[in-house]
């Protein structure tokens, strides 16, 4: 019987596992890297062990340190979560060899499924439907194909090649990413099906031969092969299809002698045929939707199975409504999903019914790895939290989830929140007509929520007025005088902001009674007439406007020069530009600066070299993704102040080009 469990992971999944342990009375041990010293998962555990360093390879991927930590703390079991060592057969073996309970499938099953090429061959033999697969790129007999890493998952190391010319590049790039992420650069090619949906089946098996399926999940809303929105049941799966999918999943699990929780992933072609993609031998990120609808605790089942227990008699899940999960990530969808780092000053999701477990009745579930003040760094993946809505209907779940996202305060880092809301409210999504190319087919979902002319105007005005209220509230002289009072009014109080759509200048003036006498904005569409606005209330934390008879509230949260504005239309962050910029040396003309912190990857050019517009100059590696740095225009490389491997911060000059 597991008495004390070490969670060899971080973030929301560590907290998720710890939550079930607490419910079962299992004592808990967390581990943490330098960067995670103040992370919430550390506080959630009964005790925690420090893994010195930041890089995953020095910390959460160090099996020896994890096993030593378990011994030191008297833990008798290890749960790997997902990612990191969750699908590492050597680690699973090492855990067992150390006399600890491994909360996961047998190392053999992991190893087999980890070798995707071999696994596919084996399962094809067992009758699981497969797409044509090529290990030798020369043998590829048709395009497009998907280049995939043989090990690992999470969409890393995946590239689509649409013709033979692109294939070599795709393979090289996928190899590098796979090698960097999983330590194994082996890749293979698979026929790429356009318009396909991603459907997967949750399985759970005990060591006594019982295998159960817990219905399907659809994860077709993806970006760069990484799942963004997951749901169950899938609107594309009929009862008959479900039966077929579950049967195939069961076959796959049985064929490899699977024990524990796992997921069999399929591709559902527009033709209605489905093909095996891979089996994930771990708890999935998206497991909460299944928990809501099936009414189970998958972690609890994992622990029971690991303890040698038998599975409770689970029937196929009865219809318990619909659940949708979104992955809220610190990244900028509008900028090629560039990871966003920094301090998460405020993270507040309203009206959450439960955390880390299904709500007792339909509602919102939050699985979050962060807290107010969390530092979002470059070392690990960008997932901040998962928000799950469970409702009687799919449309109801989508509506609940979208509105909860809009009403959340997420201050400090850019996130994909607006995109998630736009997808959840999209006609095509609501109609269930989705496939893995959804984001490519519907670029309108990339538009920020708060982007209307008046929305941006009012948001900036709200920041200005909240700032005025704050300055008046903290004034050390003349605090009792009306804000900005003049006996001979002639100008306006002005503030200039760097807003998502560019520079916005705001002017305002109050009358002697504190009413907004006059205001304007510059930098937002000037053609559109400005609405009549009265200020119902203003204080440092927000402003309520009366906009031509309609009351609208804007929350404002200022941290240094950055203000985060939340409204019913959406949220933006604006940075106030200094009123008196110090005259300082500007960057040399033609300087290309790092758009995010990371490490310089490959440097492809050298000083004196002619480069064409758009030519790849170097790559920047951050958060395990490769970010290309292209020449903005044709020119000559004047200097390259950085070397490959150098750590750079946002704004570091990477290259200087002399334009031609």
């Amino acid at each position: 019987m597991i008495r004390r469990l070490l969670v060899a992971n971080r973030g929301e999944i560590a907290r998720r596992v710890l939550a079930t342990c607490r419910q079962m009375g299992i004592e808990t041990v967390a581990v943490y890297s330098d960067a995670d010293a103040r992370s919430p998962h550390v506080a959630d555990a009964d005790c925690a062990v420090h893994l010195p360093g930041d890089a995953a390879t020095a910390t959460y991927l160090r099996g020896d340190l994890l096993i030593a930590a378990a011994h030191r703390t008297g833990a008798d079991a290890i749960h790997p979560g997902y990612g990191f060592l969750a699908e590492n057969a050597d680690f699973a073996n090492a855990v067992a060899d150390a006399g600890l309970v491994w909360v996961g499938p047998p190392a053999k099953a992991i190893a087999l499924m980890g070798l995707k090429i071999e696994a596919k061959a084996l399962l094809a033999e067992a009758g699981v439907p497969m797409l044509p697969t090529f290990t030798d790129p020369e043998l590829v007999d048709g395009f497009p194909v998907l280049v995939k890493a043989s090990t690992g998952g999470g969409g890393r190391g995946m590239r689509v090649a649409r013709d033979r010319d692109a294939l070599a590049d795709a393979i090289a790039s996928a190899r590098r990413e796979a090698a960097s992420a999983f330590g194994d650069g082996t890749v293979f090619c698979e026929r790429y099906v356009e318009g396909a949906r991603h459907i997967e089946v949750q399985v759970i098996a005990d060591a006594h031969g019982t295998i159960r399926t817990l219905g399907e999940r659809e994860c077709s809303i993806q970006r760069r092969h990484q799942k963004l929105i997951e749901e169950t049941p899938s609107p594309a799966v009929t009862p008959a299809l479900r039966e077929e999918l579950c049967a195939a999943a069961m076959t796959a699990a049985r064929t490899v002698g699977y024990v524990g929780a796992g997921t069999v992933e399929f591709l559902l072609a527009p033709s209605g045929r489905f093909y095996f993609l891979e089996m994930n031998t771990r708890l999935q990120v998206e497991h909460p939707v299944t928990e809501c609808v099936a009414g189970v605790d998958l972690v609890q089942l994992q622990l029971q199975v690991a303890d040698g227990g038998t599975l409770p008699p689970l029937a196929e899940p009865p219809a318990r409504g619909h659940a949708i999960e979104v992955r809220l990530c610190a990244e900028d969808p509008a900028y090629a999903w560039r990871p966003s780092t920094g301090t998460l000053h405020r993270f507040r999701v309203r009206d959450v019914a439960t955390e880390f477990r299904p709500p007792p009745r339909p509602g919102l579930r939050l699985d979050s790895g962060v807290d107010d003040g969390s530092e979002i760094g470059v070392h690990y993946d960008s997932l901040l939290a998962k928000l799950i809505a469970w409702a009687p209907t799919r449309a109801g779940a989508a509506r609940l989830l979208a509105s909860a996202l809009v009403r959340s305060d997420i201050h400090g880092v850019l996130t994909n929140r607006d995109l998630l809301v736009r997808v959840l409210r999209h006609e095509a999504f609501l109609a269930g007509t989705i496939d893995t190319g959804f984001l490519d087919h519907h670029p309108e979902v990339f538009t920020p929520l708060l982007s209307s002319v008046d929305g941006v105007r009012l948001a900036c005005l709200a920041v200005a007025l909240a700032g005025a209220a704050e300055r008046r509230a903290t004034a050390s002289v003349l605090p009792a005088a009306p804000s900005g009072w003049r006996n001979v009014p002639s100008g306006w109080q002005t503030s200039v902001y760097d807003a998502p759509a560019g520079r916005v200048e705001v002017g305002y003036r109050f009358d002697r009674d504190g009413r907004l006498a006059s205001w304007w904005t510059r930098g937002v569409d000037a053609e559109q007439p400005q609405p009549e606005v009265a200020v119902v209330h203003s204080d440092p934390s927000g402003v309520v406007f009366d906009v031509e008879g309609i009351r609208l509230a804007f929350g404002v949260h200022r941290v240094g020069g950055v203000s985060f504005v939340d409204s019913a239309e959406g949220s933006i962050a604006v940075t106030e530009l200094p009123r008196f910029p110090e005259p300082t040396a500007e960057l040399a003309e033609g300087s290309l600066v790092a758009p995010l912190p990371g490490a310089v990857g490959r440097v492809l050019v050298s000083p004196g070299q002619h480069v064409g517009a758009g030519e790849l100059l170097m790559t920047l590696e951050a958060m395990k993704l490769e970010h290309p740095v292209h020449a903005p225009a044709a020119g000559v490389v004047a200097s390259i102040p950085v070397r490959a491997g150098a750590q750079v911060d946002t704004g570091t000059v990477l290259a200087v080009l002399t334009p031609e």
Partner: protein
Amino acid sequence: MAILGTAVNPRGQAYQENRSAMLDRLAELDAALDDARAGGGEKYVARHHARGKLLPRERIELLVDRDTPFLELSPVAAWGTDFPVGASVVTGIGVVEDVECVIVANDPTVRGGAVNPYTLAKTRRAGEISLANRLPMINLVESGGADLPSQADIFIPGGRVFRDLTRLSAARIPTVTVVFGNATAGGAYVPGMSDYTIMVRDRAKVFLAGPPLVKMATGEATDDESLGGAVMHASRSGLADYLAEDERDGLRLVRQVVRRLNRRKLGPAPRGGPAAAPRHDVGDLLAVPSADLRLPYDPREVLGRVLDGSEFDEFKPAYGAALCTGWGELHGYPIGVLANVRGVLFSEEAQKAAQFIQLANAVDTPLLFLQNTTGYMVGTEYEQRGIIKHGALMINAVANSTVPHLTVTIGASFGAGNYGMCGRAYEPRFLFTWPNAKSAVMGPAQLAGVLSIVARQAAEAKGQVYDEDADRAMRAMVEQQIESESAALYLSGRLYDDGVIDPRDTRTVLGICLSAIHSGPVQGADGFGVFRL
């Protein structure tokens, strides 16, 4: 602690009449302020902007802390004269880096910012305020120097501006100057006499004599930049302490300088916590003053809309009831109030005032005078009972009181009542006027009547027949003249106050003044002149 009630009836006929009369006066004030704001007019403003330069009020808006109040002083200086309204300079009290400062900004769009006699008077008044209240002085200079046609009226007295600057410095009141353009000849001594001098690159021109005059005097051929450019002064002559890249940078440097002045207020701080707003509608102040100056009105209706929480503890309410005295607070500062209830001051009122002023001095409490007086009572009975003696008591007390005085003319200010109630000659720290107010030696009708009586007596003495038609014409003309010469705008144009204010702004204006006053010490008098008892 007593809370002032109100008897104002917004639905009454008097309310509407009074309000309408006040709105007419405010419209005249607004027109005058429009003239002041217009500076040199559209053409010159456009040309100035086209050169990348800011107007004086734009410079001030950038200089002062955001959302803080700015009290412009003497905004309608030169109103009713041959010189442009505003007198080509903007002065006022503003907050820079949490420090209240006196700011003086030339308006180069008005005849090149040339200094005329009213510019001089307005600038000197700003200097007085800086000295009396220990407020740092910030000069935003861009002026072509003396207005040559009126040089006779400014050359000799104008030297005081430079003397005052260095005396401020000697009194340890910091002076900071930014030169945005011309500051030549005499004007060069403004940066010359300041503690800190900032010059704007490629803009500042600071020299005793420009290239043509140098050529005439010594034969040397030279140019503006070598003679007095910002770079030259910052690197060679040392006259500039800081070189600003542009106007905005110049203002940034002022703020940088002020931030390091280590300024602390010498007077007591206001009571902690937010000051309670008056309980009654401040908007009523438009209708409280009688449209007809001959009708006195209750100043408690004003106090109830000016003092914190409308709280006022009246002193000696049953004695000398034509003058109301008492204690209250304004923006948290304690204050003693003397306000005329009925215009005439009798012996009792004068004695009550003298006593109250001494009490305020004994406890270091500033005084507020609300003037609405037609003077001390005349007539045999009152002369025989010693009205001069008693008036002298009051004037003695006012003249020798050393607690700061604030005066607001909220109606009539006639005769020696103007003196006893701390008129301009008695150097209140600040004096403001409501648009309905009038000040003169006596009322226009009385003055015309007196002239008529004297003329009639002269005619009778000579045995001549008095020309009644001529008398009527004379009286009308005199009345008209006195009427206009006693009007608020006319007197403000001549710098006999610090500005005409909207009655609804009274509390804010006084609050700013009180805060400014407390930058210096607040100390009552140790002694007065000999009281003739």
